[in-house]
Structure formats: C-alpha cells, structure tokens
C-alpha cells in the first residue's frame, strides 16, 4: 500500500527533523516525503548556491514593513493570495481557515540583517480563494513533477480541508 509506506517514511523523516532542524535536514525530509516510493533515489537537496542567488535578486527591492505588498521580504517565492490581506498575517490564518502542516519551502533574504531564512509556504485552507493581493514569485520554482519546489499545488495536505484560501509565509529558521 502506497500510504502505508508513505506513513512509515513520514514518521521516520519527522523524527529526523525533530532531532536536527537544519535546512539540509528539512530538504532531505521533503525529498523523502515526496518521492514517496522505493524505486527512485532521493533527490539532490543542497542547492544553497542557486537558491541564494534568486533570493538575492528578490531582496534587492524587498521591504520588511508591509506584508500586504508583493515585495515583502518573505514573499520571495510565494504564489497566491496573501493571507495578510485576507484577515490574517504572514503566520496567522484568517478566521475560519486552517493551516496546512505541509508546504513547499523558499529561501528569502531579510534585507534588514542580510541573512537568508527558510520560509514555509503553508496554505490556509477550508474556504474558497480569498481573492485579494495576488503575488507570484517564480524564482527557483520547478514543475509539479518536482512538487517540493512547485507553487501551483494546493498545499493543504493535512489541513482539515483541501480547499485553498490564502498563502502564508511562516518562518522556519535561518538557512
């Protein structure tokens, strides 16, 4: 059964992540999680160089004060309606919508300190699209056969509902 194997993998992956929440660990976990089966090798996961190059490009015009604008620093790879415009914030879902524990992950630079951070683009789910403040970042974005790097997917896996409402940008930690 696909899901049985998947469940086992997820549990072990989560244990690993709990032990060491580094960027490499998270991407390895995503690779494990999303390949799902046993045939394929894990993907190469360390793309720090390339990812940071895109993050740098976005950071040139980014700001850190208004999360309702597309150039807010955490939105470097966001795709969708900003929860910050829909009654929520970057990491608080609007009333009546609920966060997915899963996401794809971007690397954004905070221009205030010049540091790179990992951002979890977890969707808030359970209502039809908010429709406000659409932003699309495509730096580093890959087709859906690389789901861990694709932003077209409804990232509501594990939420109470698979209906997409808006896009969050939750801080994972330093890259």
């Amino acid at each position, binding site marked *: 059964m696909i899901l049985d194997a998947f*469940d086992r993998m*997820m549990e072990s992956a989560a244990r690993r992540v709990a032990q060491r929440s580094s960027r490499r660990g998270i991407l390895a976990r995503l690779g494990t*999680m999303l390949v799902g089966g046993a045939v394929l090798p894990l993907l190469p996961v360390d793309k720090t160089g390339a990812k940071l190059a895109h993050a740098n490009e976005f950071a040139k015009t980014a700001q850190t004060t208004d999360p309702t604008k597309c150039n807010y620093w955490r939105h470097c790879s966001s795709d969708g309606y900003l929860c910050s415009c829909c009654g929520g914030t970057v990491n608080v879902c609007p009333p*009546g919508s609920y966060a997915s*524990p*899963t996401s794809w992950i971007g690397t954004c630079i905070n221009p205030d300190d010049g540091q790179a951070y990992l951002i979890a683009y*977890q969707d808030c789910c359970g209502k039809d699209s908010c429709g406000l403040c659409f932003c699309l970042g495509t730096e580093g974005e890959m087709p859906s056969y690389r789901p861990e790097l694709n932003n077209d997917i409804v990232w509501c*896996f594990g939420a*109470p509902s698979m209906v997409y409402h808006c896009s969050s940008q939750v801080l*994972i930690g330093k890259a």
Partner: protein
Amino acid sequence: MRLRALGVVVGLCGACLAGGPVAAQGQPATPIPPQMPPAAAQPTQEDHPTLVLPEPSPRWIYVLEPVFPYLVASKMWIFDGDDLSVKGMVNGGYLPNAVMSHDRSRFWLTETYWSRGSRGVRTDVVTAFDTKTLDPVGEVVLPKGRFLVVPKKHNATLTSDGRYLLSFNMDPAFSLSVVDVKEMKYLGELDTQGCSLAFPTGNTSVASLCPDGRFLHLTFDSAGRVTKTELGEPFFDSEKDPVFEHAAIHRPSKQGYFVSYDGWVYPVQLDGMPKVGTRWKLQGAGDEEWRPGGWQLAAFHAASNRLFVAMHKGGPWTHKQAGDEVWVYDVRSRQRLQRIPLAHHSPTIAVSQDEKPLLFALTETAILQVYDAVTYEKKTERSGIGISPWLLYTFGE
C-alpha cells in the same frame, strides 16, 4: 495543535460542521480525513494558528456577494467600517440570504447547494456561522426549499427574541419556512397565501407583503403552525406606485419605512399586526426630476430617527437605477436634513446603528464607500470587493 499564539486563540473546528446538539439536525459532521500523518508536520520557528475575531463591532460591514455570473460561489465579506480593512469572509451557496443575530454571536446564511455544483441533488439549508471564529457551527435543512431570486434582504428574518428564523419560500407556492435557531431545528412552513417576504413583528409572528398592497400577519406556535392570520387593508396602490421590497427596517425598535417608486414614505410600526402611519413624500418643490432607486436603497438610523434614501434623476421605471445622492430625512419632522452627493453612484446603502454612525454606499462596480453619517463627509472607499457585491448588513440593524 497549538492552542494559543500571538494573543489569538486557535479555532478547533476547521471545515467541520460543529459538534454538540446543533449537528444532530443538519448534515452529518463528517470530518475530512487528513491526508497526512500528524508526524509529517513541517516544524517551523513560528506558530501558525488561526485568528479569532473579537465580538463584532456595530461599525463592521458585512457585504453579501452572490458572485454574478458564478452564482454557486457566493461570499460574505466582512470589513471594519472605519478603515475597510478585511476582518474575514465566508463562502455561501446559490443566491443566499443573510440574517444577523441580535446578540452578535451568530449570523446565518440561507443557501442552496447542488451535489455537483450546478447539477445533481439540490439541498437548501440554513447555516449558522460563529461571528468570532467564522466557522460554520450548525446546519438545518430546509426540506421545502427556498425562494431563488437575486438576493433581497427581506427574504429572511429573525423574530424579535432571536429564536426563530423565517425564510421565504416560493416554489412557486408561497410560504415561510420556520427554523428554531436555538435548537437548530426545522419546524415547518407557514402558508403566506400569495404574500411575500418576511418582516419581523414579535417573538412568534411575522408579516408578509401581498400583491395588492396589504400586509398579511401570521402568528405561529412552537411547532411552526399558524395560530392566527390577520390581513390588513391595502396601504399603497400596487398597480400605480408599488413600494420597494427593500424597506428600511430597524428590528430592535420595530420600525419600518417603506418607500415607493414615486417617492412616498410609508412609516410602519412592526409590533404585532403592522400599523401603517401617514405617508409623506421624499421630494419637495424643485425635486421633481429625482426619484428613489437602486437595490437596497433605504437605511434607517434609529437613535437619531434619520432615514437615508439613494436618489437619482430619472423618469418612471428607473427604479433600479443607482443613486447619485443619498438624501437624509428626520422621520419625525419629515424634513430633509441633507443631500449627500456620492463619489460613485450606488444602488445599495446601509447605516451603522452606533451613536456616531457610518453610512455605506456600494457601487455596481464593486466599490464600497464610507461616509460619516454625522458630518456627511466622505471617509474612505475600497475597490475590488469581489466582482458583484450586492447587499449590506450590520449588527444592530
């Protein structure tokens, strides 16, 4: 699950339809099984909870959008009236109506769904939403259906004590569906004998408007059966000068102001069998070119006894034309106090019921304007309220 973060409390319901007794009457509260094992959660430095709203302010404005031409995807938007910041939104069904509770704890949508969007099996429901979590917290099926029409406010209402919700039904026989919203239970249908709409008149009574210009008044019991039927005399000429459906009604004070196509105002006391007062006219000398018109074209501010009406220049049968101005009247003196030119012409207006009220005006192009209803100055506006916002609701109205 994280229960508290950043000063907001996490709602626990999600897409479910409530536990407790309310669910017993409605659709089974089938939780959708999460597709991910809990251990798969992405660890993050920040929490990611769900915002819970404070008790709604009377200055919040609730905008019902039927979403033409995507009518199966309706929406209720909620904004803070002072700055038009988004408080939240909920989704509704086909051509919904909204009803606001007296105590601000709930609003209800009367809605219609098909099992496959626009086809399949039809289900009509009253859905209760918690005003703080915006979760659907209960559902009652309306087995006889409901009136499907471009949304009109007075298709559904609440009795004076907030116990019963009445939903107008035309299928095409005429009735009012009675729902006990305390027990979340459907009680039955009241035959309105060809009369339409629902105006609250007490704890267990309701008035409808008849084709020939009179009120039908029905009293009902706790089983949803008619116990008394009263029929008034015609108070307007429904051939020559009908009143708009969108009377300005203030439920707490049981006052209603019915405005006719030609501009006559019929004050009605909605306490028991409706009592119609002496009519008076909106237009005075020199106003001959002006007419009331639009959709939700009239609003009443009870504390200051002021009536607001959207007015435009136009001939006969321009009753759906948007207002270029809002005219303000003292309903005691029947004097016009003000003409408020609107920045954008608007078919729909509303006024908040607080002491320093706000006047809202909604355009056909999805712009919501806010005016100070004391100074009559424009405060702010917001465009892009979806693609076809239609009706305005406030708590306390």
